[in-house]
C-alpha cells in the first residue's frame, strides 16, 4: 500500500469533508451501497464496483439492511417515508471507514440530502452527517481517496461520456471518471457539447412526463452520435437505461455500459445495457 495515499490531493478533491478527514487506513473497510437499480437490473455493475474497490486495496462489505436510498419518495415530496428509509439506511451504513455507491445520484442523496432531511432532529442529523461525510461516488472515491489507477483494462471502442446531473452538480464528479478511463487500453474518448446536460431521466419524471423526457433524451442521443462515438459510458444506471432504451427504440447505434464495468475489465464479458444494438431496431420480447 502506498503511503502517499494518506494525504488527499486537494486539486482533485471534490469532497469538502476530505479537508479534515482522518488519514486513509491501510485497508479501508468500505460499505458498498449497491443502489436499487444495480441490485435489480444490473448486478454486474455492483460486482465491477466490488472488484475495483478490492483492487484499490479496500475490504468491501455489503450491509444487508439496504434497499433504496429513498430518493423517489424524497423527490416526490413524501418526506415522511424518505426519512424512514434514510433512518434505516443510515443505520446500515454506520461503522465503516467509507460508504461507496456506483451512482452519483444515490451518493448525492446520502451525502447532501440525508443531513437536510433531519435538520429538525439534531441527534439524527449528527448521525446523518457522520455517514454523509464518509460517503463517496465510486469514481471519485477511487481517484480522490484511493489514488487508484486501473490496470490492464482494455476496451477497443470509440466512447463518449455522460455526466449524471447529481454526480456532476451535487458532488463535483467530472474529472475522476475521465482520469480513470485515460488508463484503459484501446479506448478513444470524444466529448460532446451536451455531456453536462440532463438526459431526461430524472427518476419518476421520465414516466410522469414521458414526452418531455423523450424530447430531452433525443437531443442527448443526437449529440452523442455527432461525436462519432458508438458507446456511451456513465456513472449512473438510471441515465444509461434511459439513453440505451431510447437508442434501441430509435435504432441508433449507441451501446451503454456503466463506467465501472469498463474500468474493471468486465465490459467485454457483459452485454451492454438493454442488449447490444447490432444495427437492429430492438424488437425483444413483447
Amino acid at each position, binding site marked *: 500500500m502506498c503511503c502517499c495515499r494518506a494525504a488527499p490531493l486537494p486539486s482533485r478533491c471534490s469532497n469538502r469533508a476530505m479537508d479534515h478527514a482522518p488519514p486513509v487506513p491501510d485497508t479501508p473497510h468500505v460499505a458498498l451501497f*449497491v443502489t*436499487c437499480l444495480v*441490485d435489480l*437490473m*444490473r*448486478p*454486474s455493475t*455492483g*460486482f465491477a464496483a466490488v472488484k475495483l474497490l*478490492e483492487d484499490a486495496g479496500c*475490504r*468491501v*462489505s*455489503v*450491509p*444487508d*439492511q439496504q*434497499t433504496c436510498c429513498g430518493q*423517489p*419518495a424524497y423527490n*416526490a*415530496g*413524501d*418526506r415522511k*417515508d424518505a426519512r*424512514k428509509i434514510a433512518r*434505516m439506511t443510515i443505520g446500515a451504513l454506520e461503522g465503516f471507514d467509507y460508504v461507496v455507491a456506483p451512482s452519483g445520484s444515490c451518493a448525492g442523496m446520502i451525502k447532501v440530502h440525508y443531513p437536510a432531511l433531519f435538520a429538525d432532529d439534531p441527534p439524527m442529523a449528527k448521525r446523518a452527517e457522520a455517514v454523509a461525510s464518509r460517503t463517496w461516488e465510486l469514481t471519485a472515491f477511487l481517484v480522490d481517496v484511493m489514488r487508484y489507477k486501473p490496470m490492464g483494462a482494455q476496451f477497443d471502442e470509440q466512447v463518449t461520456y455522460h455526466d449524471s*446531473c*447529481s454526480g456532476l*452538480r451535487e458532488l463535483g464528479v467530472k474529472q475522476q471518471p475521465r482520469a480513470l478511463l485515460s488508463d484503459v487500453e484501446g479506448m478513444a474518448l470524444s466529448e460532446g457539447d451536451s455531456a*453536462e*446536460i*440532463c438526459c431526461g*431521466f*430524472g*427518476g419518476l*419524471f*421520465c*414516466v410522469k*412526463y*414521458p*414526452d*418531455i*423526457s423523450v*424530447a*430531452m*433524451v433525443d*437531443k442527448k442521443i443526437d449529440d452523442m452520435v455527432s461525436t462519432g462515438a458508438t458507446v456511451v459510458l456513465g456513472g449512473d444506471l438510471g441515465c444509461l*437505461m434511459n439513453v*440505451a*432504451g*431510447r437508442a*434501441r427504440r430509435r435504432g441508433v447505434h449507441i451501446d451503454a455500459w456503466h463506467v465501472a464495468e469498463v474500468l474493471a475489465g468486465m465490459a467485454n464479458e*457483459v452485454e451492454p445495457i*438493454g*442488449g447490444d444494438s447490432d444495427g*437492429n431496431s*430492438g424488437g*425483444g*420480447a413483447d
Partner: protein
Amino acid sequence: MSQIKTERFRENTRSALADRQLQAVLGKFADGFPVKRAQAIARLPEFDALRDAARDIKNHVLENLGPYLEQFEAQVIASGGQVHWCRDAEEARQTVLSICKNADARTVTKSKSMIGEEVDINDFLEDNGIEPVETDLGEYIIQLRREPPSHIIAPAIHLSKQQVAETFREKHADRAADRSLESPRVMLDEAREELREQFLGADVGLSGANMLVAETGSIATVSNEGNIELTCGLPRVHIAMASIEKIVPTLEDAATILRVLARSATGQDMSVYTSFITGPRRPDDLDGPEEFHVVLLDNGRTELLASEFRDILRCIRCGACINHCPVYEAIGGHAYGWIYPGPMGAVLTPGLLGMETTQHHPNASTLCGRCESVCPMRIPLPDLLRKWRTRQFGAEITPTASRYGLKVWAYFARHPHLYRLITKTGAIFLFAAGGRKRRFRHLPFAGGWTDARDLPAPQGRSFMAQWRQRPPRRSGGRL
C-alpha cells in the same frame, strides 16, 4: 393576452412538442445565450465572488424589507414623486388607470415590464379606452400578434425571423407590400419608425424597474434598445411598476447587481443602456416628466417572504435559469401557461397563483440543477421545486395513485427482507421475460417508459441474491 393556462400544462406541452416551427427555433436556443454567458464569465474571474455579494445584498434586503421600502418611499416623495402601495393585481390596475385618467391619457407608451404582464395591464387599459403601445421590440412584436411573452428577457424568442416579417407585412399594411424584410436590422428600423410617432404622442409612459434604490428613491432600468429612456422621459407622466422585492439599499449595491445581471442574462458585460431615474423633472431640467409615480406591487410576495420559498425573492429576472433549462429548451415558454417560465417560473408561479392550478410546474423538472449552477443570485431552485412537491404531497394535491404507489413502495423499501423477496422474484421473472434481445418493447403498467423507449431487462438474479452466495474472499463479506 396573458390568459392563465397553467392547468393545461400537459396539453400545452404536447402542442409545443408537435410545433415544428417552434422546435426549429428552440433547437438553436442553446447556441445563443448560454454560450455568450459562458464567454462573459470567463472574462471576469471574480464572477463567483460577485454572485456571493449579490446574494448577500438581497438576503439583507429581505431581512429588512419593510424599513427599506419606507426609506425608498420617503426618498421618492422628497424628490417630488409618489409611491402607490398595491396589495394585489387589481389594486395595481386601478392605480395605473386612475393616474392615466387624471392625466387625460389616450395613449400610453410602455417599456418591458414583467409586473405589467403579471397584472395584465395592457388588456385592462384597452378595456378602459386607453391604448397601450409596447416599445421594446420583442414586446412590440408579440403585441402585434396578440401573444403572451415566452421568455422574461426575450419575449418573442419563440418566433422565427420569417414569422416576424410576416407579422410586419400584415400589420404595417400601409407600407409597400413587396419591401424587403430580410434582415433583423431592417425590421428593427421599421419598428422604430412606427414607434417614433407614438413616443411623441403618448400622454403617459409606463415602465418596469430592474431595481429600486432605497437611499436615493431612484429606479434602475436596463435595456439594449434605448426605448426605456424615451418611455420614461418624453410623456408628461411616468409610471414605474415594480414588485416590492426589487429594493436594493444603495447605488453601490445596485452596481454590484448590475455586474452580474447582464452577464447572466445576455452575456454582455453591461446592457447598452442603464438608467437611474429619480423623481420628476426639476425646474432646471431640460426634459423629463411632470409626474413620477411608482406602483409597488405585493401580490403574494409578503407571504412568500414568510415561507420556505423566500429565496426566490432574490431573483433579478436575468433569465439564466431559463436559458439553461433543458425542459424549457424542449417545450418553450408558452407551455408553462403563464408569464414566468422555466425554473424561476416553476417556483414563483405556484406562489403567485396558488398550488391548485399550478401542480405541474414543480413536478415537470428532473431537478438536474443546471439552473442553480448558473443563477447569479444563488437561488436553490431544485430545492425550492422539491419544497413545492412536499407541500403538494401534504395537501394531497399529488395524484392519489402516485401517493399510494409511493406508500406501498416505501413500505417494502423499509423492510429489506420483504423487499428482497419481491426483487428476487421480480428480477428472475423479468429476466426470463426479457428474451434474447434483453429488453422489452411493451410492459404492462410501464407505458410511461415503454411507449417511446425499450426497457432494458434485468441481467438475472439480483445483486444481493448473488452476493449472498459469493465465496469468501479478501473482502468483508455479508454483514
